């Protein structure tokens, strides 16, 4: 029998002690780089907006966002975005489902088209929508200067979010789980509600959150079709642009801060729903 002698200076592996550089060295570098990058790109600019928006004190901030035109723009933005998020939640999931589970001619092409709203500059999207649904619409449907036009524009640019978050989850879904449920006496509707939906809900919510936050910030696609009629079709982002144009940066920053807070609240709410859902599946 041969025994392999360990060299005298071999690290004491048997004791389970780590050798080489301590594990946190790499982590610290990674965390540091990530933090600096995030700070430079996201946190500091956001902080500047917050500071600018609230520098005059809470009363001034409140006054700035409750001027009739700012308030109307914020209200329209939030209601339209909620509506768009909701439609996306349903239709995005349906599209993802069709793309994963069904086969039909032209499927590959449609799969490709889904990303188009991402690839297209939003102003181009606005132009397309204006050409299609503008005052002299070839379809005879004029949505120009209407709130419906705003919603359609937002739907166009936010379409990919839910589809692209749900699709991979649906692809990875364990089909045996559905077979097991079927063998346990569950019908198609029960399988969808009790087995597939719980698997999809986190992705559906994540996609909806992205769609909502994108919608409340949308500028390019809505600016043309909405006509920016204050109190009627002007969305918050366009209102902010108008304020900056008229050299009213404090008011612009205040409205921006309101959008920022709204996004955060919505993301937080979605996260809470997701956590609640994972406990009560």
């Amino acid at each position, binding site marked *: 029998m041969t025994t392999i002698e360990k060299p005298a200076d071999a690290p004491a592996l048997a004791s389970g002690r780590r050798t080489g550089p301590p594990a946190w060295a790499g982590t610290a570098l990674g965390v540091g780089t990530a933090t600096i990058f995030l700070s430079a790109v996201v946190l500091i600019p956001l902080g500047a907006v917050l500071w600018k928006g609230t520098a005059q004190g809470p009363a001034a901030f409140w006054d700035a966002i409750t001027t009739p035109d700012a308030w109307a723009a914020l209200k329209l933005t939030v209601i339209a975005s909620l509506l768009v998020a909701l439609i996306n939640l349903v239709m995005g999931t349906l599209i993802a489902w069709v793309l994963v589970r069904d086969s039909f001619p032209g499927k590959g092409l449609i799969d490709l088209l889904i990303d188009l709203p991402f690839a297209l500059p939003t102003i181009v999207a606005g132009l397309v929508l204006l050409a299609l649904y503008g005052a002299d619409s070839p379809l005879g449907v004029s949505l120009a200067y209407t709130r419906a036009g705003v919603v359609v524009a937002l739907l166009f640019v936010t379409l990919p979010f839910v589809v692209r978050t749900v699709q991979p989850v649906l692809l990875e879904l*364990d089909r*045996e*789980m559905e*077979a*097991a*449920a*079927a*063998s*346990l*006496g*569950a019908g198609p509707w*029960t399988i969808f509600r*009790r*087995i597939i939906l*719980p698997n999809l809900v986190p992705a559906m919510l994540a996609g909806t959150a992205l769609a909502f936050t994108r919608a409340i910030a949308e500028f390019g696609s809505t600016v043309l079709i909405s006509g920016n009629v204050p109190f009627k079709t002007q969305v918050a982002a366009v209102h902010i642009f108008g304020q900056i144009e008229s050299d009213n940066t404090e008011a612009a920053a205040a409205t921006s801060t309101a959008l920022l807070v709204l996004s955060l609240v919505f993301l937080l709410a979605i996260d809470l729903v997701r956590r609640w859902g*994972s406990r009560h*599946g």
Partner: protein
Amino acid sequence: MTPKISLTGVGKTFPVRGGGEFTALSGIDLDVAEGEFLVVVGPSGCGKSTLLDLIGGLTRPTTGRIAIDGAEVTGPALDRAVVFQQYALFPWRTALRNVEFGLEAKGLRRRERAEIARDHLDLVGLSGFEDRYPHELSGGMKQRVAIARSLAYDPGVLLMDEPFAALDAQTRDSLQDELLGIWAKTGKTVVFITHGIDEAVYLGGRVAVLTSRPGRVKEVADIDLGSRDAREDVRSSPEFAAHRHRVWSLLKDEVQTAQRLTVPAPRKEAIHLG
């Protein structure tokens, strides 16, 4: 007497992408008696799992007829249960709530469900693990939960698709013994799919050997080993070796055919001929 499960001339073909058909099973005639433990072995890709899906009603046969207690199988129903290789537990439900799933379809009340589910977790030796989620359980425990889930709504037939293939050797051995114990206790009719010859001979009252592509029943071997007692080393007995050799011989040619037919050799499910 009508057999519990009866297959007559069962065949299954799948359409292949780009046209044509793939014949997975062809001309399967097989009867399983009430309370029997039948094991099906075959080379990889011979359609073993397809056979189980057909009996389970998860897919429909292209030709032939499958009947349970004389009544034709038209879909999944609560007279049959399927146990899958990858457990197929629902990860957002606790062990207890997983076991309750089939009982919910049966429309039992909450308290009644919990009681039956508890009893069945106890049957598979998992008392005290009712509130664990699948990710908190080992592979062997997950499969126990899956078995409890299948037995809970009291089906007459238990269909098992390589249920122990993903487990380590010790866990597999002890689960085999427990399965035999549960089978003896409950008197279910079991159809057990495996690619392991030892497992087939150890568990089966009869072992059906399938041919490769298309899958047909080559021979059904009677395994006469008496009752397997976990305290005795049945696997070392000369009778066991003789049965094992017989099944091995039946399979050998089929495995070689399967390997010739296989373009890139499937690594997942090779037959252990060693």
